[in-house]
């Protein structure tokens, strides 16, 4: 390449232009995610935008100035690739929530580490360090650290390294508040007392305090609230990345970070709404376990539970004209999605319409059920959102509830004393007959008794979801 050419490639204007192309591609790519047909291409376009942003940054004059920095950059990129690629290739679709949580965590961790280095530079050369950098890096350090440690705990809970139930110290919500105040106080101390050497300790103090805060926020949150926590942490990492972008005055980081911040915020609100709870009350934690005891004890059911056999279910389904399947996390745990798909094929052969009712918070992250069913080749068309499917239930002959519980609990509509009263549910109790596939009579993640099980038109098919569904399919084939 000629000298003029290489100067052109390294010029600030060229790099800024490349950045603009990069974030335009990312936004365009995200727009593709609005439909299943354009989504694959959209994701690849966004990835291309990312590649351009990285390439432009590497081309920038000064980045490759010293040979050490070249090797260190290559080392970092190589380590990341060696860990990231196999992890992404091998992860099972059921484990997707923890995968997303941990990828999110490392992003937050990167923000925190970058802020740390920025602070070291700032303290060694205070004259060239404007207040804006300080403020935004501080924000990045705090939120990034919270996001990293919070995600690690979320990962641990989803991977069942830690118990999923809320882990609480007595009077913890007050402690969380205190820590929040402590973090703010230390942050203020840094800005006010800026200039002396010992301040490096304050940065570490902030990172540490934010880490403890992250741990204390996520530990008390129950497994059922995980979809909200993951999207919230996602939003946090996005915002901290945007803050780093402002500190470094890097447009592509600002735009990309804010898009993630916005998307995380939207998803968090949607999830919270679907559970009829406010985001602050979820963060305060403790749902599931604490509320359960009075609720379970208070509502005594006189009705009996009727259990059924696979053969009866097969006969019931055979004579139905419309069947709705409402899957929940239990289906994912039992890896029953492929068996469910076989059931769908078998029923469609017999002219039965089969639809899937997907509650927004079914599973452990937003849209989790859809991914699992898509993996099993269930057509996108058959997957119905809650608002779409609810009017269908009165016309439905049989509803199969597979491993779902709280999202089908009619107490949410009928019983004002229920802790989930007001939560939008799949109105499966409106259909002519309900078959609940369940391992045992244990209550759902929220620990609330479900009157649906005692409804005279409900029958229960106990056992492992995958085994039960497979049995129903073979009974159907024998009919």
């Amino acid at each position, binding site marked *: 390449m000629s000298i003029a050419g290489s100067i052109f490639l390294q010029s600030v204007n060229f790099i800024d232009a490349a950045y603009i192309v990069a974030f335009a591609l990312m936004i365009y*790519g995200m727009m593709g*995610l*609005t439909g*299943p*047909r354009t*989504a*694959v291409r959209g994701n690849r376009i*966004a*990835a291309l935008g*990312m590649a351009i*942003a*990285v390439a432009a940054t590497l081309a920038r004059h000064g*980045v490759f100035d010293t040979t050490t*920095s070249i090797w*260190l950059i290559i080392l*970092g*990129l190589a380590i*990341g690739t060696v860990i*990231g690629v196999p992890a*992404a*290739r091998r992860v099972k679709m059921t484990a*997707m929530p923890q*995968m*997303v949580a941990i*990828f999110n965590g*490392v*992003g937050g*961790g*990167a923000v925190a*580490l*970058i802020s740390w*280095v920025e602070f070291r530079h700032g303290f060694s050369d205070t004259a060239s360090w404007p207040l804006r950098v300080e403020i935004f890096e501080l924000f990045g350090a705090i939120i990034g650290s919270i996001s990293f440690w919070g995600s690690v705990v979320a990962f641990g809970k989803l991977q069942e390294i830690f118990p999923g139930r809320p882990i609480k110290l007595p009077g913890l919500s007050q402690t969380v508040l205190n820590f929040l105040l402590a973090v703010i106080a230390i942050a203020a101390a840094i800005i006010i007392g800026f200039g002396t050497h010992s301040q490096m300790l304050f940065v570490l103090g902030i990172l540490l305090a934010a880490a403890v805060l992250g741990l204390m926020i996520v530990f008390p949150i129950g497994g059922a609230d995980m979809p909200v926590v*993951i999207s919230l942490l*996602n939003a946090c*990492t*996005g915002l901290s*990345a*945007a803050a780093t*972008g402002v500190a470094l*005055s*890097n447009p592509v*980081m*600002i735009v*990309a970070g*804010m*898009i*993630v*911040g*916005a998307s*995380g915020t*939207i*998803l968090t609100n949607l999830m919270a709404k679907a559970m009829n709870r406010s985001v602050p009350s979820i963060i305060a934690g403790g749902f599931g376990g604490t509320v359960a005891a009075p609720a379970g004890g208070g509502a005594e059911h006189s009705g009996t539970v009727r259990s059924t056999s696979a053969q009866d279910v097969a006969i019931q389904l055979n004579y139905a004209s419309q069947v709705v399947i409402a899957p929940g996390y239990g289906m994912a745990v039992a890896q029953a999605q492929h068996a469910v798909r076989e059931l769908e094929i078998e029923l469609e052969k017999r002219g039965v319409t089969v639809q899937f009712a*997907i509650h927004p918070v079914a599973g452990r992250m*937003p*849209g989790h059920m859809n*991914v699992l069913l898509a993996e099993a*080749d269930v*057509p*996108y*068309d058959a997957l119905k959102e809650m608002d779409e499917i609810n009017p269908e239930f009165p016309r439905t002959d049989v509803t199969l509830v597979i491993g779902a519980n709280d999202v089908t609990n009619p107490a949410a509509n009928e019983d004002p004393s229920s802790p989930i009263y007001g939560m939008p549910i799949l109105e499966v109790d409106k259909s002519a007959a309900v078959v609940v596939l369940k391992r045992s009579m244990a209550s759902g993640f929220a620990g609330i008794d479900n009157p649906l099980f005692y409804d005279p038109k409900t029958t229960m098919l106990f056992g492992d979801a995958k085994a039960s569904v497979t049995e129903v399919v073979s009974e159907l084939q024998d009919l």
Partner: protein
Amino acid sequence: MDSLVIDLAVLVLAGFVGYTVISKVPNTLHTPLMSGTNAIHGIVVLGGLLLMSESHGLLEQILLVIAVAFGTINVIGGFLVTDRMLDMFKGKDRGSKRGSTGASAEGEK
């Protein structure tokens, strides 16, 4: 205009763009959306790359190598996993019910 003002303007506008774009994504695609946006915030890797040449001493170099590695895991892992998931949605899209699938997918836009 001060560059800080411009940066903040970009920040605010990007927030609105993000809100508008993401609001249109259907519930069904929320998991891929999440892992896709997750990959995008791996953009912080740029921060690590930019600071690398300015780093002094072993500690900063170690911190930045970890930061770059973290960011790379985030970016590459995120995009790959999203691609895998979306491929499944696409795969069955042209599956059994060809005619009706096309019509409804168009109708959604």
